[in-house]
C-alpha cells in the first residue's frame, strides 16, 4: 500500500506545502519521513535509521546521515528541521538561532499523545497520503472500539499478557496496554496492578494462563534477552496460535505501527473468541 502512495507522490508535483528540503534529528521522525514523504524531499536523517535493527524502509542514497550536530545540517540548507521533544535539543536551538525553521513534534507515549503527534505531523508536513491514511485508520478503529463498548453490555474479553525482552511486561500506563484494551483484551499485568513496566517470570506467565501471549520485537536477531520466548513451555501457545508479536517499531515510533497493530489485535481477539 505504502509503495503505491509513494509512487503516486513521485508522479504528482509537490502540493501546497513548500518545504522540499526536510531534515530530521529524531529516529522516529526519520522513519515517518522515509515511510511517507517523497524521497527527493529528504536531505538528512539520523545515522541510527540506517542501522540494521531500526531500518524499516530503504534509505535513499542522497540522504545524509547525521549525528544530531547543527554543523552537519548547515551545508544542507534544510528549509524544515524536525525534532522531538527530547534529545538533540542543543542542535535544534542552534539551528533556530541561525534562522532555520525547526518544528518540535510531540512524542507519543499514549494513544491520546499519538493522535496529537499525527495531527502535528499533518500540520507540518501537509496531508501526505500515507500519513493521512494512517491517521484516519487509527481514528476509525478507536471510534469503533468506543462504539463497541457502549453498544454491547458484556462483550467477551479474553485475557492477554505481554512478555517482552528480559521478561518485561507492560502495565496500565503504557500505550501497549491501551492498544490491548481497545482491541478488547484484558491486560493481566494491569489487572495485577502493574502501572508501567514490571518483570514477569515464565512461571508467572504459566500461572496467569493468558488467552493471548504477546511478544514484543526480537524476531530477527538472536538475543539472550528474548530467550524466554524460546522456552519449550510456551510451545502450546505457539501451536494453538494464541501468540501475537508486537512489531519493534511500536516501541520507538508508534506512529508507524499503532493502527496496524490495533487492527491485527482486533482480528486476533475475534479469532480467539470464535475458537473459544
Amino acid at each position, binding site marked *: 500500500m505504502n509503495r503505491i502512495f509513494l509512487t503516486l507522490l513521485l508522479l504528482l508535483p509537490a502540493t501546497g506545502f513548500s518545504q522540499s528540503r526536510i531534515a530530521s534529528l529524531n529516529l522516529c521522525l526519520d522513519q515517518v519521513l522515509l515511510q511517507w514523504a517523497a524521497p527527493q524531499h529528504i536531505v538528512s536523517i539520523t545515522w541510527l535509521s540506517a542501522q540494521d535493527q531500526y531500518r524499516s524502509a530503504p534509505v535513499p542514497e542522497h540522504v545524509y546521515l547525521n549525528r544530531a550536530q547543527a554543523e552537519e545540517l548547515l551545508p544542507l540548507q534544510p528549509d524544515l528541521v524536525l525534532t522531538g521533544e527530547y534529545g538533540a535539543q542543543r542542535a535544534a536551538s542552534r539551528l533556530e538561532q541561525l534562522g532555520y525553521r525547526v518544528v518540535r513534534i510531540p512524542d507519543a507515549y499514549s494513544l491520546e499523545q499519538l493522535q496529537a503527534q499525527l495531527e502535528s505531523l499533518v500540520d507540518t508536513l501537509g496531508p501526505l497520503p500515507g500519513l493521512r491514511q494512517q491517521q484516519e485508520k487509527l481514528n476509525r478503529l478507536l471510534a469503533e472500539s468506543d462504539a463497541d463498548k457502549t453498544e454491547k453490555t458484556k462483550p467477551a474479553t479474553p485475557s492477554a499478557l505481554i512478555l517482552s525482552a528480559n*521478561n518485561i511486561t507492560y502495565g496500565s500506563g503504557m500505550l501497549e496496554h491501551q492498544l490491548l484494551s481497545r482491541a478488547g483484551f484484558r491486560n493481566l499485568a494491569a489487572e495485577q496492578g502493574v502501572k508501567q513496566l514490571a518483570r514477569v517470570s515464565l*512461571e508467572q506467565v*504459566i*500461572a496467569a*494462563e493468558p488467552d493471548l501471549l504477546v511478544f514484543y520485537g*526480537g524476531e530477527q536477531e538472536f538475543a*539472550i534477552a528474548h*530467550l524466554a520466548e*524460546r522456552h519449550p513451555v510456551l510451545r502450546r501457545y505457539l501451536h494453538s496460535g494464541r501468540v501475537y508479536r508486537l512489531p519493534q517499531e511500536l516501541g520507538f515510533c508508534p506512529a508507524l505501527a499503532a493502527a496496524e497493530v490495533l487492527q491485527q489485535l482486533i482480528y486476533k481477539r475475534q479469532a480467539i473468541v470464535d475458537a473459544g
Partner: protein
Amino acid sequence: MSTRDKGILWLLLAALPVALMLALMSGPVSVNIVPALLQGWHSDSSDAVILWQLRMPRALLAMLVGAALGIGGAAMQGMLRNPLAEPALLGVSSGAALAAILLLYYGLAWQSGWLLPVLAIAGALLAVSCVWLLAGRGASASRLVLAGVAINAFLSALMALALNYAPSMFAMQEIVFWMLGSFANRGWDQLLLALPFILIGALLLYFSRNYLRSLSLGEETAVSLGFGGRRYPLLVLFGIAFAVGGSVAVAGTIGFVGLVVPHLMRPLVGQDPGRLLWASALAGALLLSLADVLVLNVVGTQELRIGAVTAFIGAPFFFWLIVSARRGMAL
C-alpha cells in the same frame, strides 16, 4: 578410600535431593509441590507445568553445570599442580563464551543445536591450551594467575567487542549475561543439549584420574610411573573443555565454583586428585544449586545473576588463598 571419605561423599549425594526440593520450592509463584509432583509430567495444570517444565530443568541444569565446573576446577588444579587454577578465572570459560557468542550472534540461531556446545568446547579447548602452554605445568602461582588473567582479560575484551558489534538491541545486557551467567528461562532443551557433552567430559577426566594422581609428584615421576606422552594431558584438556564448554554454552560463564569447591573438599576427602574429581563434582552441584536457590529467593527488580552470587562467595575465598600463599602456608 577410607570410610570417612565415603561417608562424606554419601552425605553430599544425600544433600542433592534436599537442594533439589529447595529449588523446586523456590519461585515467584506459590505452587503446591506434592500434588504437582504427583500429577506428573504430562499434566496440563499450571502447577505441574511450572514444576516439571520450569523449575525441574532449571534446578537440574544448575546441578549439572555446578558438577561440570567443580570437576573442571579440580582437574585443572591437578593438571597445573596449582591450587589457584580455575576455569573461569583463567579464561577457559571466556574462551567457550566467545565461541558461543560468535556463533549465536553472527552465525546461526539458538536452535543451531549441537553446533553450539561443540563450538563452545572448541573455544574452551583453545583457551585451556593457551593457559597450559603459557604457564606450563607446575608453574608458580603468580605466573599461572598472571598468564590466566591475561588470557581472560583478552578473551573478555573480545567478548565485549563481539557483542558491541552484534546486531542486537541489548548488547550491554547480553555482555552481562555471558560474563555472569544465568539459569533464567532455561528448559529441558538446554539441559539435554549440555548433558552429553558434560558427561563425555566427566568420562575423559575419569580416565585421566591416575595421571592426575601421578602428577602430584611432578612431571618426571608421572612419566616414570607410566603416564608419559601427549595422550594424558590431552585427555585432561579435552575433559576440562567438554565439561566447561558444555556448561558455558547454556549458562554463560560462572566464576569461582571451580576454584572454591576443590578447596572446600580437600580438608574433607584429602588431596588425592582422583577422589577430588568426584567430590568436587558433587559439591559443585550442591553449591551452584544452592546459589541458584538464593538467586530465586532474593527479591529485586532484576533477577540477581548467578555469577554475582558465586563471586560474592568465591572472591573473598580467593583473597584468603593468596594471603595464605604469601604467608607460605601449605595450600
